[in-house]
């Protein structure tokens, strides 16, 4: 094993999968470094879930080489399984057992001794804010609580590589924030995370690297910054009260998109705090009075339009 491959938690080369005559994955290459968050970004039907199912040994690929945690997926599936934890897109909890029993079941299946199992269960219930619900069945839980239990079950075995398939789909904004915090905490603890998402914002917020998946192919891969640089559409929009202000601003700022009727300017920008501060400083220095300011960040539609030349609605068909 070479030095570089030992630092890679996941490698996949030429991954292919079809269901019947529908090609779901058409030659995917992935490299995920240890201790990082990797986001697979794409619309419904792009192949994200299938990728996760293959990497987590749930489905066998039709072709391609995969190594997870240093083990060949096809030859040593059990070695892969003992290194990974998976939280799928739909609930993987036992609905007839209580939350606590679910965690203890996992502890038994991870072959922990009784005391260690109880300790981790108590710890996870505390950490995921499920202490009060511990003796109730998941049927009585809110969506966010079910997700947290699901994730807690994945963590009982202390996996070094964690797959999260759309971990925030269907969660409210606060549930989403909570999940993000948990994900960051896991990576801080040394885990490697591969997650899928439909939201550029989420990938941007969490991931060290993002791969954009479309119709079973990777259309782009890179750091969030690299990707966003390839995407037009991010801009700051300035609103002025009169044409004079607009004119002065155009002279000061240079290359902008100008709308004389609406008295607005669009300045290309990634919308970051630094970019905003720089812009406001320049406006202040030139004593330009701005009536309103709004930040427009590119969304998945922009990304898809930019990288595939088609809006994603058509892609999903």
């Amino acid at each position, binding site marked *: 094993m070479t030095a570089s491959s030992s630092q890679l938690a996941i490698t996949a080369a030429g991954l292919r999968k079809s269901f019947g005559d529908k090609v779901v994955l058409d030659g995917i290459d992935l490299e995920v470094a240890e201790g990082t968050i990797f986001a697979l970004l794409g619309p*419904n039907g792009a192949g994200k879930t299938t990728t996760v*199912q293959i990497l987590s*040994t*749930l*489905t066998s690929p039709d072709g391609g080489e995969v190594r997870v945690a240093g083990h060949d997926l096809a030859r040593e599936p059990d*070695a892969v399984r003992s290194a990974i934890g998976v939280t799928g897109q*739909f609930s993987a909890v*036992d609905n007839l057992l209580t939350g606590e029993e679910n965690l203890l079941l996992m502890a038994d*299946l991870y*072959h922990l001794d009784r005391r260690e199992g109880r300790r981790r269960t108590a710890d996870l219930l505390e950490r995921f804010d499920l202490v009060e619900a511990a003796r109730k069945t998941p049927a009585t839980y809110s969506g966010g609580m079910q997700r947290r239990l699901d994730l807690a079950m994945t963590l009982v075995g202390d996996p070094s590589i964690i797959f999260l398939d759309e971990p925030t789909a269907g969660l409210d904004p606060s549930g989403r924030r909570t999940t993000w915090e948990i994900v960051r905490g896991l990576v801080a603890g040394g885990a490697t995370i591969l997650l899928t998402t439909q939201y550029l914002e989420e990938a941007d917020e969490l991931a060290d690297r993002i791969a954009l998946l479309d119709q079973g192919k990777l259309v782009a891969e890179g750091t969030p910054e690299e990707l966003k640089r390839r995407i037009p559409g991010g801009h700051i929009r300035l609103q002025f009260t009169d044409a004079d202000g607009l004119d002065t601003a155009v002279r000061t700022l240079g290359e902008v998109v100008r709308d004389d009727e609406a008295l607005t300017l669009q300045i290309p920008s990634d919308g970051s705090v630094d970019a905003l501060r720089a812009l406001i400083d320049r406006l202040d220095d030139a004593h330009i009075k701005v009536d309103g300011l709004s930040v427009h960040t590119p969304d998945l539609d922009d990304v898809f339009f930019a990288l595939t030349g088609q809006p994603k609605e058509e892609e999903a068909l």
Partner: protein
Amino acid sequence: MSARSYAVRDSVTMLRRNLRHALRYPTLTLTSLLIPVLILLLFVGVYGGTLGAGIGGPNGSTSYIAFVAPAIILMAATSGSVSTAVSVALDMSEGIINRFRTMAIARASVLTGHVVGSVIQTLISIGLLIGVAVLMGFRPDADPVEWVAAIGLLTLVTLALTWLSAGAGMSAKSVESASNLPTPVVLLPLISSGFVPTESMPAGVAWFAEHQPFTPIIETLRGLLTGTPIGNDAVVALAWCVVLTLAGYLWARSAFNRDPAPSRPRTLARV
């Protein structure tokens, strides 16, 4: 590290899980006991007089219960197979099964846990049914050795039927179809030597009744419990148990090891 060395431990864990399900939601088990109890009441309490006279017993329903009880005890096992198929199919539709598939556990433990759990439940049903039969006047004359043999045979039959229904539950596309698949097995004891002697049946039906697996099983059970001649029925019964167990086991295993269907989150509509 190897999953194999944990096979027993994982199976015990899964068994505990299934028994906990059964204890917490006992409806399925109780329903499967209800049918043989009703049949017992019907065939002994209602038809017993005529049927008992028909098989040439000296005093109607009293001698008929001795004749029919082994068949109805067996029906406790066959109707238990419906609840096995349903609970396996229900469990397979749960997301947690996919979680199990991604864990380094002995794969077979999911199946073993179900099968052993169902066998235990069905044996309890059988025990309860024997109790009801005794209350209704069934007086087995078996000695302890014969009781052990009878319980052993019932355990083997239950094991065979449970593996078959686990296979049915694994391969059923829905819980509804899982509950229908074991129907032939449930009805089969009705066309055997269990309720009336096969000689009294029309020729074709009699041939079928004599060659289907439940007849030698019932004859052996009847011999052990009430002292009728067994002959080579015991050997044939054991052979059937082995064959059916093996077939059910292979069926269930191949159905479980199949790739799960291209999954869609159940919460979202198809694109």
